[in-house]
């Protein structure tokens, strides 16, 4: 009886702490935003440019998140190495790009620049897909029947293995992405300044996502993937080659991540062997945000996270007199991850209660 009472008191205390955390976060967000907006230290154009960079960042996150969400949907595995697949794509694109730059093709005129970017993305996709298939074959496939923790640890191992393999291959130095001079200007639009690079990134991300969506919803392979992620054993009974569906999923996700790697390189201009880790974790956040296993959700989650990271620190924190709020963008992103997991684990678009499927 006594233990019962203690347990109930503890439960009550836990609930109280949880509510306190929620209230503090809401107060910080609302109060911080109000103070920032009231202080009026940022002009409308500042906000606009923050939004633009949020969209750019978000579309990159969305592309990476697609791989996480598809693999999670089909295997219930957090593909920890996905961030490294993305980084590998960035390196693949870098080497294609420097080669094209050396040939003088990259900056000859706008058309060759765009073709070059496409070539870089293709190169990146080839590298990423090859690597992802290798990882799937070696580190994941033998563990499909193993307990989940086992597969997850293997995935973490794969992530570190790839990072330091790339360090071994290319060294610890920073690789500067080739300069695409033609794309440095801005799009002639009223009210808003958008660089051509940014426009190109958003457009290509949108095109790829639309393509992926069509692939998953319209083609036979896409249907097979969805069937397997719904219920693998039933799908197998219906004559679907489960293994092929899984491999295709990895390949498609890796292709998106590879392309995202090139886009990332074009925005941030420098890559290292560690470049994949944080974007990877954040893209996973985006996938959870949108509802894991849900493809439009991943896109939405990506954009949302990009915005939160771009606007969030300035909006929530600068009003609270926090010095250099931009330093804390990762804090905002990860706090958001935790809040989503706590408040709505199914994500924005998710119907499944991931807490129960996980």
């Amino acid at each position: 009886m006594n233990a019962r009472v203690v347990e109930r008191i503890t439960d009550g205390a836990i609930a109280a702490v949880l509510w306190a955390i929620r209230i503090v976060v809401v107060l910080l967000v609302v109060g911080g935003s109000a103070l920032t907006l009231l202080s009026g230290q940022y002009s409308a154009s500042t906000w606009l440019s923050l939004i633009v960079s949020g969209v750019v960042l978000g579309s990159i996150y969305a592309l990476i998140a697609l791989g996480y969400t598809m693999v999670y949907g089909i295997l219930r595995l957090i593909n920890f190495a996905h961030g490294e697949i993305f980084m590998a794509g960035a390196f693949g694109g870098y080497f294609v790009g420097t080669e094209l730059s050396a040939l003088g093709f990259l900056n000859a005129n706008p058309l060759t620049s765009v073709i070059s970017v496409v070539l870089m993305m293709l190169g990146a996709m080839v590298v990423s897909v090859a690597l992802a298939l290798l990882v799937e074959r070696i580190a994941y496939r033998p563990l499909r029947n193993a307990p989940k923790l086992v597969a997850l640890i293997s995935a973490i191992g794969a992530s570190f293995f790839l990072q330091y393999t790339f360090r071994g291959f290319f060294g610890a130095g920073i690789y500067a992405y080739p300069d695409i001079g033609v794309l440095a200007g801005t799009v002639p639009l009223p009210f808003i300044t958008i660089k051509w690079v940014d426009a190109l990134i958003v457009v290509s991300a949108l095109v790829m996502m639309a393509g992926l969506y069509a692939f998953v919803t319209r083609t036979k392979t896409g249907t097979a993937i969805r069937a397997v992620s719904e219920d693998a054993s039933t799908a197998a009974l219906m004559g679907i080659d489960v293994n092929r569906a899984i491999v295709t999923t990895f390949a498609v996700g890796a292709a998106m991540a590879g392309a995202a790697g090139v886009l990332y390189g074009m925005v941030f201009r420098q890559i290292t062997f560690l470049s994949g880790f944080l974007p990877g974790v954040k893209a996973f956040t985006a996938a959870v945000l949108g509802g894991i296993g849900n493809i439009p959700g991943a896109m939405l989650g990506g954009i949302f996270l990009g915005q939160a990271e771009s606007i969030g620190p300035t909006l929530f924190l600068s009003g609270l007199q926090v010095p250099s709020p931009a330093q804390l963008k990762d804090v905002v992103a990860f706090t958001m991850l935790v809040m989503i997991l706590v408040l709505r684990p199914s994500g924005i678009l998710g119907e499944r209660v991931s807490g129960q499927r996980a």
Partner: protein
Amino acid sequence: MTVSPNSDVQIDWRSAVRTGLIGAAVALFVCVVGIVPVFHQRALIKDIISLGQTVLVLTALGIGARGARAARATGARSLLPAMLAAGIAGGALTALILVGQVINLRGVFLNASPDLYDLLTFGLGASGAWIPLVSFAAIGTLGGPVASLPTAFRRPITTAVLTLLLAALFAGIFRSAMLTTPLAATARVLFAPVGLTVIGAIALVIAFAGGRELLAYTHVRQRVSALPRVQRRVVLWPIYGVLALAVLVMPQTLGPFVAQVVALVALYVLLGLGLNITLGLAGLLDLGFVAFFAVGAYTVGLLTSTAEYGIADWPFWAAVIPAVLLAMVFGAILGLPILGIRGDYLAIATLGFGEIIRVLAGSDLLKPFLGGPRGILNIPKPIDVPPDHILAGPNQIYYIALICAALIAFVAWRLRASRLGRAWLSIREDEDVAEALGVNLVQTKLLAYMLGAAFAGLGGAIFAGLIGSIFSSSIQLQVSINVVAIVVVGGMGSIPGAVLGAVFLIGVPELFREFSEYRFLFYGMALIAMMLYRPEGLIPTRFATRELHLDATQTGGEALLPPTEAG
């Protein structure tokens, strides 16, 4: 396809070729990733063979052995498939050298340099491109029969190879430790400044391989374990005593560098044992362990530092208790919101916490309090002694960490069989069933999480004492990964496993700083390999072995995927 006349089993040449191709990838990888060139700088046996060359020889032997096994050939018939497989791998290196002459591969792969080609061809460059092909084929041919040798022959060979590798790695340390003692002459004969001497190699191989064979032939082990309990104690306790003594005097005898390393190892043993409760017993994968480590370290820093940012000038020991308590409170605050979510989500959420704490520690926001990247300096040593005292420098940290680790091991050992421990194990196995049986999930998990956090805080406090300062750059994700790797490689839930894991994963890379670049490469490999071949860890608990192997036999045939229905 050729069929040997007097055999009933056909040699499977295709499998041999496939093994050769995989081997080719491995051989190219170890060269291009830089393992071979970096290891080449260290000798195994002075003037005879370098570690890098040893890696190549072992690769060739391994490919040969696997090729023979893949081809299902034994005895003399295994020579050809072994040669074929290893030859293909060697041919890949030859091709690498030839291609490297035409195209500048160095523009992409840093290590595909003339140095590597010289290493592979004994300095001949392009004209010696045939050397890897021929030598791989030759060495690989030897590997074929080795694989099918009876254990009685294979065991001494394995022992000899392992002895050589370990002795060569530790040679410099042994040598410098022995030079100050009456054993100096022996040290000069056995060990070169790096690597072994020829005499040393022969002597050590005879001593160790011979010794092991002697033990095996006299059946000492079986006899000891067949003894009645009391007598077995009489035999074993002196051995344990000697081991314990060796552990205690290690930092005193092997010099200050080794003392620093063993102190760090002891610290990671402590951290590993702490995570062992969270991960090993309760099955909560915590990738943000460093967060609590940071809380402990910064608390001690703030309370004791005599420099800027110090607020209290407390002695070290007084600060340890608030450090541990505060880490526990952080564990509770961070754990509460996320412990309702399951398994892999928890891993990501904790990873997020680790990153949040890391970013905050280095941010301008907390800089006025924590010093940001410049950190908190002048943290006093736990025990104030003159510099020549046996407790000076890292030694005291070593002993303190050992004592704390023993304490945690004791707590974990006692907890495992308790009501709480059994509740943890049941949660690890199946949350739904545990809950149905009346286990309060959130509270039970929270206790595991808080205990883990408390020990991480203790580790952080001791770390602050070891380094004497704490910077935001010490708070790295790698710390968390190190600890997870220790627990996983050692065996989840296993106490001796955590010790062994720390020795291998922290001690060995720290001792060989030139290889530290490849440390996480090996971690990654180790994690994957452990999960594939030995998910229960190096020193598993009886429980984990039974569970994981039962699992494999039960679900092996039917399920295509992880059983999602169960979730």
